[in-house]
């Protein structure tokens, strides 16, 4: 804990100085934190997924050019230079990682989960994706193909999960409720 306290003090000192210099305000920082939690969150991605499930034309557009397809949604903030969406099918399972650091499509998925940044996840998911998926409770048949997509500063990946059975006739809003952050990273199957 002493290390945490030391870091807390360093962070506090930096904030005091930056505020003194007028480079940042408390409200600005609060606003950013709120933005990445309340306004961006995984829900934005869920809207895209639900629309794609409900609307075949939108799905085709989303898979062809994720950045353009999400434009009308006006998601604010976030770090999506180029969004590439990969569709899960019964034959192919997609999984997202950033082996270099922790690039992540914030604007659609919010803040990354803690494990996404772990060296263990970042390195193992490339070497033994099926085993890592198994640890997340995702057991795929041997016949299926697993593709791992390595994010970068330029390209952020998101998974379009398979539509769960029993969701026929649901509205887009109801469908969005079914979509989890983990399913859009590719470490969870929806059913």
């Amino acid at each position: 804990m002493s290390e945490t306290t030391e870091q807390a003090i360093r962070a506090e000192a930096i904030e005091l100085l930056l505020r003194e210099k007028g480079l940042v305000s408390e409200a600005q920082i609060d606003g950013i934190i709120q933005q990445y939690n309340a306004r961006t969150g995984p829900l934005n991605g869920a809207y895209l997924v639900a629309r794609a499930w409900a609307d075949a034309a939108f799905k085709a557009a989303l898979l062809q050019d994720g950045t353009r397809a999400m434009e009308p949604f006006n998601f604010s903030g976030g770090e999506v230079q180029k969004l590439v969406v990969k569709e899960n099918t019964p034959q192919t399972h997609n999984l997202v990682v950033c082996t270099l650091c922790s690039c992540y499509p914030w604007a659609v998925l919010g803040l990354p989960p803690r494990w996404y940044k772990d060296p263990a996840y970042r390195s193992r998911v490339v070497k033994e994706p099926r085993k890592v998926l198994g640890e997340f409770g995702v057991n795929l048949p041997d016949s299926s193909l697993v593709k791992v997509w390595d994010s970068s500063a330029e390209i952020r990946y998101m998974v379009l999960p398979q539509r769960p059975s029993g969701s026929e006739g649901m509205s887009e809003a109801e469908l969005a409720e079914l979509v989890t952050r983990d399913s859009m990273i590719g470490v969870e199957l929806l059913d």
Partner: protein
Amino acid sequence: MRETEYGLQGRLAPPLANGELVFEAPWQGRVFGMARSLCESGLYSWDEFRQRLIKSIALWELANPDAQDSYEYYDLFLTAFENLLADKDLLGGAVLSGLIAELTTRPHGHDHEHEH
């Protein structure tokens, strides 16, 4: 300040829905917020920050080749942020270390509110 810290924890509720902590301590959120704020104010590009984050992660991994545990992500995030501030000369180094010393020696209990 105290209310903000608690409110901040409350606002973290949605990302906690999947059983994950996003920030383990309020300071991590503050550092994240500062790094993004200054970027949005145009003082640097996000890529300039990112490069330093990559570097601090790489240095940690070099120094800990056999580590079973993960690094503390926000510790490295803070290091990257401090390096960027220094490179851009946005903080005086001497001023910062003086203030840190001052905050470290303040009466016990004063920093309590930042730990919740």
